[in-house]
């Protein structure tokens, strides 16, 4: 059998999310964490990786309230980038007061950047193109 380089596949990762577990990879070369999974360390490129569970905690780097969604998504949700305590940044949804997270709240909406959040998850059915159901991180304020 040929060597498989993925220590953690996207299926494993999404199964973890469904149990509110955030899985990632620890690099045996540089010690840093890769998330979501890749066949190489996102920091040093090493393939010497081991599976690890992350805290699921981090802070909001930025976000956007989406009114015009892709077909197969219900409108009006918040997408965000979260820098995890372990180092990597991942994309997810933000479960938060939508009016506070938008222009309706003026400049104060920017205060959400830096907010501490913890991981939960959301599953929505797939469409013709998504290769199965869609599992995503859903971040909640701590």
């Amino acid at each position, binding site marked *: 059998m040929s060597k498989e380089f993925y220590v953690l596949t*996207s299926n494993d990762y*999404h199964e973890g999310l469904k149990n509110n577990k955030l899985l990632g990879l620890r690099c045996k070369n540089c010690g840093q964490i890769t998330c*979501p999974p*890749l066949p190489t360390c*996102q920091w040093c490129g090493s393939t010497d990786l081991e599976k690890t569970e992350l805290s699921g905690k981090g802070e909001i*780097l*930025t*976000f*956007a*309230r*989406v*009114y*015009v*969604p*892709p*077909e*197969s*998504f219900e409108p009006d*949700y918040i*997408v*965000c*980038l979260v820098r995890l305590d372990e180092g*990597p*940044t*991942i*994309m*997810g*949804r933000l479960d938060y007061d939508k009016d506070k*997270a*938008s*222009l309706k709240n*003026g*400049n104060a*909406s*920017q205060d959400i*950047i830096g907010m501490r959040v913890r991981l939960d998850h959301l599953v929505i059915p797939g*469409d013709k*193109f*998504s*290769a199965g159901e*869609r*599992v*995503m*991180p859903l971040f909640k304020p701590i």
Partner: protein
Amino acid sequence: MRDVAIIGSAQTKFGKLGKSNTELFCDASLAAMEDANVSQKDIEALFVGNVLGGFEEGQINIGGHLVGALHLGNIPATRFEGACCSGTVAFRDAFMWVASGFYDIVLVGGMERAMIMGTPFSTRTFAMANDCKYEGTTGITFPGVFAMVARRYSKIYDIPLDKLREKMAHVSMKNHKHGALNPHAQFYQKMGNLKVEDVLNSTVVCDPLTLMDCCPFSDGGAAVVLASADIARRYTDEPIYVLGVGQGSLGHMGAQADITKPASRVFSARSAFKQAGLGPKDVDVVEIHDCFTSAEIVASEAMGFFDWGKGADAVESGQTDIGGRPVINSSGGLMGKGHPIGATGVAQVHAIVEQLKGKAPNGNQVNPVPEIGMTDTLGGGFNTIAHTILGRSRR
């Protein structure tokens, strides 16, 4: 490597056209071939940028059909896909094959007919340019990417969001002003006199971006004929030389160090400048990928025209409008001219060629006629970025 010249270029009107991708490509190509004074037998290979033909009209493998339609014999045809950057990726490859000496004359173009898909399905298919497993699942859209860029920029540089939105509005005002003067533009004779309030108060599409912060969906085609510089003057008195090209890549957005300073763009722009032996200060006119107002600002910094965090002030002060330097998006850009994603990069090249020949639309021509122009094209969330640097004189 040999020097390469553009000996002809053209674009179709952009907008809602109801034509097939093949029709759009051929309309642009035959006009570019006429402009170049070449006949079908002169073209040795065809390069095409097209992103969503399979979704738009059920057509893949379009290269052969284009060669057939144009009666180019049996020459090789290759399709390139790098989302909204596809046209420039195709152009760069075409350039390299001529520069290497493999071909003397080639045709490169791109086209897209996104309007037939409607906004929800267009938004779905465009969003496929993001990482499908770790980003696409969340329902991220391209307005979403650049809404996140705007908020991050506001935070990093401590510019209150309302102040930043006013600065961003100037991108829309400037580009729509130019687009309204360009007969090929989707918004020709429309929105030429926007005020800051018009941009701020239009419908919110993806908070904090409004409709006027966004480029539209579009149909359109563009094409150029490239030739070895040594033979260019057999065909035209006004060859425009390709002085440098660049291309760069990046993985998913989370793995990027800073989404306001995309490393793929820095890498690509530097490669192009290095090849041309030029720097940002040498550029007179530039077509920048202004898919959203925030996108033009961060691009103008990553290409080296302004310090980090100063691009927003530059557009607000009018430095990037005609009369300033570098002039950004004198054709109307994606926002005013339209954004048929497969065609966009080639249309940007066409716009610079027109500027360098002094043939840009009335009111959009920079005077005196510029020497050096540049294009910047972005695909996805900074995943594919490419540049060209063009000049009136051979190095």
